[in-house]
């Protein structure tokens, strides 16, 4: 049998994980649905029976996804935080990679699918309820258009016009995976208060980056600012706004940075999690 990854052993591990955690997961999904119902219900009451428009649905979806997904990510390897659980987990006869992939399957893939399903299970009836309430509250308003169910995966930023980023929702989802992967790494690094400690760490990184950009990088650059992307810089010559030139790095650098931001952060964090997991002692 392969000592790094064996598919049969992996499927057995997935089944074992489900057997041990299904009650917790099902209750979690019910709680998520309850919170979404509560939130939409609250909006309908506060807004006096207004429709639930697409932007509100998008906001609800992504806020809920980020909050619950990152929280779940921060407890994904919570077993490692307590001695007895960590021993039971680490000594179980499956490879580190199988354990990590099993965790990612539940915490990243299945959580995302389950959250999206729960969201639509709540969203569809609540949007319809909002529409019918609006219709009954404003019977004479003939021009009002009912709110539509939002498509989370396909919504152009500028409808009808091609923009620099034609599908921002997918970008949000990719960003979510990147941030969630940082919380997953945090769940292995910080045995206790992982969510809070990871949040503080991410804020510190953001703060250090801002300081570096503002206090170190900015004074070294000529007058001007970034233009459209990180790799283009607009320079004002002699402080004259009418005389400016744009300095751009080759296009491949923009593409590489964009690729890293969109697709590479999550896998990089997962790989770091793997190595951290391998060297875990208890």
């Amino acid at each position, binding site marked *: 049998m392969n000592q790094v990854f064996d598919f049969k052993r992996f499927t057995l591990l997935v089944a074992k994980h489900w057997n041990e955690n299904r009650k917790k997961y099902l209750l979690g999904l019910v709680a998520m649905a309850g919170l979404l119902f509560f939130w939409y219900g609250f909006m309908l009451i506060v807004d006096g029976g207004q429709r639930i428009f697409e932007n509100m649905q998008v906001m609800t979806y992504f806020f809920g996804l980020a909050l619950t997904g990152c929280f779940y990510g921060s407890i994904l390897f919570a077993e490692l935080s307590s*001695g007895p659980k960590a021993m039971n987990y*680490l000594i179980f006869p499956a490879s580190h990679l199988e354990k990590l992939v099993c965790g990612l399957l539940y915490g990243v893939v299945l959580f995302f699918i389950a959250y999206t399903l729960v969201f639509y299970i709540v969203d569809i009836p609540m949007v319809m309820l909002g529409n019918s309430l609006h219709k009954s509250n404003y019977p004479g308003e003939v021009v009002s258009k009912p709110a539509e169910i939002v498509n989370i995966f396909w919504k152009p930023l500028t409808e009808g016009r091609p923009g620099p980023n034609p599908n921002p929702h997918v970008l949000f989802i990719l960003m979510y995976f990147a941030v969630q992967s940082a919380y997953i790494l945090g769940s292995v690094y910080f045995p206790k208060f992982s969510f809070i400690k990871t949040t503080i760490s991410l804020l510190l990184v953001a703060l250090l980056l801002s300081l570096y950009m503002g206090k170190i990088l900015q004074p070294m650059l000529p007058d001007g600012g970034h233009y459209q992307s990180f790799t283009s810089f607009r320079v004002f010559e002699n402080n004259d706004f009418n005389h400016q030139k744009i300095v751009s790095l080759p296009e491949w650098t923009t593409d590489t940075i964009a690729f890293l931001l969109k697709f590479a952060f999550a896998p990089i964090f997962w790989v770091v999690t793997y190595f951290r997991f391998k060297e875990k002692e*208890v």
Partner: protein
Amino acid sequence: MISVQHLHFGYRKKPVFNDLSLELQPGFIYGLLGKNGTGKSTLLRNIAGLLFPREGQIRVLGLDPGNRTPAFLQEVFMVPEEFHMPDVPLEHLEKHYAPFYPRFNREQFRKYISEFNIPIEGSLQNMSYGQKKKVLISLGLATNTSVLLMDEPTNGLDIMSKSQFRKVMAGALNENKCVIISTHQVKDLENLIDRITIIDEGKILFDQTIDNISRKLSFQISYDAEEINAAIYHESSLRGSAIICANTEGEEGKIDLELLYKAIVTNQAKVQSVFNA
């Protein structure tokens, strides 16, 4: 089977092992004794791959425990002092653990569970600490791993369960299996272990087989002041003095593990001199 060579290990500021070497063979139950905090559990965790040596090396069946490969993990089962078990029915536990251990025996599992008076239809969610521990011991034995590590296995067991434990353990050993039991409750291991290893301050203080101890030492109750004074170790009791003296008559008697342990901890050199003679 288990080879510990020049093991150095310590927690941040506290060194635990300094050049510890040990060889453990299959077919024996080893009793690992020592005071609290002397490194018994730490040694077991090093052998299980839960802690990594700072220096030196450990090999279990030729494998490095620190890699925690499935090939290693399916040959080692550990019953920790503080343990966690999922809140699932026993039948589910059996179903989901069995495929990971190539020699898992369902009949054995059910037999041990039944000997511990636990209904197989039960769920771990509704069980007490002691019952859960008995399930874990049964599971550990039924996996039939080559190495079984037990850290204070009798802690939390009632008097009846302790004798059940001894009975179950006595029937579970075979020539391919190496069992290491770490405990400070030496009475619980009487008539069970084949070899005693006592650790103190990160070093092996005493390491002898039970047969050898029986041949070399004699454990008696004495009222004779001269005999008491000449003994390797003596301890007053209500029924005279319990003494350990050199076995000169060659008759192998019963070993009082607790007395032996005290003798070694208080005067190791004197006890050891009998074995070196």
